[in-house]
């Protein structure tokens, strides 16, 4: 009887872990439209595929791990939405240069990164999330944002990372203090 129960427990455990992976796959499906947007707007298929693949894998692993890491993946995706969308929208709707003004995509990525970073920081401070989960959320936000900011090349990615850091750091430092 005990052996049968141990077998059942092992089966239940496998089912639970399978359920966590399926949850990760469902949550990672949001990466597909993000990658499609990046592909259309940025025209860099290899870079988009690399970033999207890493983003999907991160989301699956973090959701499977669960707890603060799972929440971090969701917050990271949300925080990466602004740097993903802003450069893409600007590129699609506004002429990059007029007679007196040129849109700097790097600056856009910096600004939208600050918004995403602030969101990350406020989540981490509000929920008292530990450092590893904040780092995981930051990685997801960076990968999600990079899908949009790669429109500006390396400058955009640097702007994005700087923005995320600038937005999150003050809040995180305040929490420590």
């Amino acid at each position, binding site marked *: 009887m005990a052996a049968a*129960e141990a077998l*059942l*427990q092992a*089966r*239940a*455990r496998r*089912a*639970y872990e*399978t*359920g*966590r992976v*399926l*949850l990760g796959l469902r949550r990672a499906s949001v990466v597909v439209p993000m990658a499609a947007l990046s592909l259309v707007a940025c025209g860099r298929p290899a870079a988009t595929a690399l970033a999207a693949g890493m983003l999907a894998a991160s989301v699956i692993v973090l959701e*499977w*791990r*669960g*707890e603060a*890491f*799972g929440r971090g993946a969701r917050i990271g995706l949300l925080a990466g939405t602004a740097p993903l969308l802003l450069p893409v929208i600007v590129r699609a709707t506004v002429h990059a240069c007029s007679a007196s003004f040129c849109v700097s995509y790097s600056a856009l990525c910096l600004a939208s990164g600050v918004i995403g970073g602030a969101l990350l920081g406020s989540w981490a401070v509000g929920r008292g999330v530990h450092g590893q989960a904040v780092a995981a959320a930051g990685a997801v936000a960076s990968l999600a944002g990079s899908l949009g900011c790669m429109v500006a090349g390396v400058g955009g990615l640097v702007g994005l990372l700087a923005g995320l850091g600038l937005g999150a750091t003050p809040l995180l430092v305040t929490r420590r203090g």
Partner: protein
Amino acid sequence: MDQAGRLRLQDDLARLGAGDRAAFHPVFAALLPLLRRFAYRSLPGADAEDAAQEALVKVFLRASEFDPMRDALSWTLGIAAFEIRTARRRRGRRREVDADSAQLAVQHDPAASPEDAAIAADLDAAIDAALASLPPADAATLRAFAMSERPAGVAPATFRKRVERGIARLREQWRTTHGRR
């Protein structure tokens, strides 16, 4: 399950749903006896155990979808009820298949177990009901055929055709009532 156990299950299942593996064992220990009791109310022996185990595995498979705003016990029993319904349907189909083959022999076997005898009696009743719903001429033909008799004055070829027609109608009637041939 008392109120304290219910609250504990709510808390443990919410933690498990969020990914806290430490909640696995408490949930397992709470649900196994509960689902067994629930299944044994609706199904006999081995079928109940199978349904309880399937339900338990399904609960863990779907634990990550659990919404902590919902009642954990109701959510769990909802999954178990679905598994029990599935097990009952499966059991019903098994009985129909048996009815197509071995049960008539079991009915006349004095060494048959009480359960086999009960199944055979159920089957007899189902066949009688199906025959009763046929036109009287078809029912009479099939009864005669079952007794290996042929009514006087009916040619063999005519009788064979009547039997075929009667069996076709009986099959149709059986399918309508029980869902399968």
